[in-house]
């Protein structure tokens, strides 16, 4: 503690440089935490999915629908205990610049198969009974200031025209991967408006025994193998993971950019620290003359580097941890449940320690090994 004043005085020697160095560390670790959180959130969403739910898609791709009649045949398979279907809508709201997910579902079966979507019983009934009704996640309610019973109009992008829905319920997801900024409306209304009755984007199949998932998935696909719309069935987790793998390269890119940014800042910080130590060659020699040992001077320079790196880390990592929940960030709906995980904070803190070692080690060693007589000759 008695050396604290000396450390603080040295840090305050060039206040602007110290502040800029701390801010650059903070920025680097904020970016690191943000970019890594994208990756971890995507990975977490890939883990989402009940073990008892399968998803059946058109084998050609998600954009190709399946006949609604398939549902009745799937239901007959042994081990299948429930079935629902949904269709991506992709409508835009307002000026179209802000995006949120919206899709058509069969209300009763969908809410039954997804107990993670929680809303009051009266709102649920109200939604089921109103063909033009919709339910929304709580985030949409607060974002747009909507109210229950209010009409909301979406502009269709895939399915043209203005689509007006009445908000009948507000749900709160128990699993963040569900997303709380989604609008869900009646598949029946959707079918009627597009004039192409009897199609589903995908099926959600509930099964009794998760251990039979591969067998049931095979049975479903075998059933439609020779039809005009063959299917591809997998667990819901595989379905989510397939979305996540679409981000695969983006995740890699983000990790790479994150590391590059941290490395670049490391060089800047190391340079600032070395410059600071070099400027003080004479003072370090004087301290040695007074009796400061090599080990003590090494420690003092390391503490200076540590103070800068750890203050920057606290600002950057703490900032990321506090900022995103405060602004309800979810990557325009693509990153539901976005959060800065504890593992990210731990890795960030380790990066900061690494930064401290890398930026402090050379100047600290230089200070410790400084030949006093030679250094004094330079300043005297």
């Amino acid at each position, binding site marked *: 503690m*008695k*050396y604290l*004043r*000396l450390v603080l*005085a*040295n840090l*305050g*020697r060039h206040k602007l440089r110290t502040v800029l160095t701390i801010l650059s560390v903070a920025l680097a670790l904020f970016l690191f935490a943000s970019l890594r959180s994208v990756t971890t959130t995507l990975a977490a969403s890939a883990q989402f999915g009940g073990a008892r739910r399968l998803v059946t898609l058109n084998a050609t791709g998600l954009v190709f629908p399946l006949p609604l009649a398939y549902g009745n045949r799937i239901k007959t398979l042994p081990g299948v205990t429930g079935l629902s279907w949904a269709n991506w809508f992709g409508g835009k709201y307002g000026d179209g610049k802000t995006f949120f997910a919206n899709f058509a579902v069969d209300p009763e079966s969908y809410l039954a198969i997804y107990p993670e979507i929680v809303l009051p019983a009266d709102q649920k009934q109200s939604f089921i009974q109103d063909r033009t009704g919709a339910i929304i996640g709580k985030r949409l309610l607060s974002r747009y200031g909507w109210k229950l019973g209010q009409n909301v109009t979406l502009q269709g992008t895939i399915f043209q025209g203005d689509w007006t829905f009445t908000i009948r319920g507000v749900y709160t997801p128990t699993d963040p991967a569900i997303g709380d900024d989604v609008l869900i409306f009646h598949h029946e209304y959707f079918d009627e408006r597009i004039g192409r009755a009897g199609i589903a984007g995908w099926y959600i199949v509930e099964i009794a025994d998760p251990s039979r998932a591969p067998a049931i998935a095979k049975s479903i696909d075998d059933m439609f193998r020779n039809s005009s719309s063959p299917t591809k069935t997998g667990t819901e987790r595989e379905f989510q993971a397939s979305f996540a793998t679409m981000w695969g390269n983006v995740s890699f890119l983000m990790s790479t950019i994150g590391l590059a940014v941290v490395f670049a800042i490391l060089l800047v910080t190391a340079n600032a620290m070395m410059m600071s130590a070099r400027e003080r060659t*004479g*003072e370090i020699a*004087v*301290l*040695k*003359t*007074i*009796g*400061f*040992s*090599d*080990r*003590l001077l090494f420690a003092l320079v390391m503490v200076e580097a540590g103070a800068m790196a750890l203050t920057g880390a606290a600002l950057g990592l703490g900032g990321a941890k506090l900022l995103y929940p405060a602004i309800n960030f979810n990557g325009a709906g693509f990153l539901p449940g976005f959060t800065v995980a504890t593992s990210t904070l731990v890795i960030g803190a380790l990066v900061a320690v690494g930064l401290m070692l890398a930026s402090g080690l050379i100047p600290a060693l230089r200070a410790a090994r400084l030949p*006093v*007589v030679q250094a*004094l000759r330079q*300043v*005297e």
Partner: protein
Amino acid sequence: MALVEIRDVYKSFQRDTQRIDVFTGLTLDIEAGSFTALMGPSGSGKSTLLNLIAGLDRPTRGTVTVGGAIVSAMTPGQLAAWRARNIGFVFQSFNLLPVLTAYQNVELPLLLTNLSRAERADRVRLALDVVGLADRADHYPRQLSGGQEQRTAIARAIVADPTVMLLDEPTGQLDGKSSQEVLALLQRLNNEFSKTIVIVTHDAHAAERAKTTLHLEKGDLIEKPRTVAAAMR
């Protein structure tokens, strides 16, 4: 037994391919409580001698003993601890840390001791009082005159009550008045507080204040010490 004993010391430097011999068998005693001026032309080895006594440099051969401790045989770690307790060093260009106040600069050697904060404060106040700068404790070096800076440096050198004070051209950057103040202060430290002082100087007036003057030329002592004690004998 002398406080500082230099026995058959050799010191040489390697500059590129050339070997420069500074001392070739120097032997010298400095008594406790003495005030010794080291004089001589540039390159005669005055500062090197000071550095050897302070343990900042090592002799190529021979021994340097201060207060019974063989300085030339100590490890770097031992030397640092020894210097903190036994050496008060004053530089020509003051070398105060610009980011610290006069008080904090004087306190530096005490940080290496086990003294409490209150005990350190007492010692620092006393040292500043002795050099006449008690009212400048909170001033930074840039707010002090050259003479005041050097007196602060002297306070820093005496605050830990060292065995010997070593001063390398302490008046070299001061005007006449400030030089006289600093030299008077050194005389007072020697007379009133019995501090052993070794001063390197080019200034004959400064040397006059010393009780003993040694002349070095090309590493040789060309005039034997004429100490007060010797004169008395």
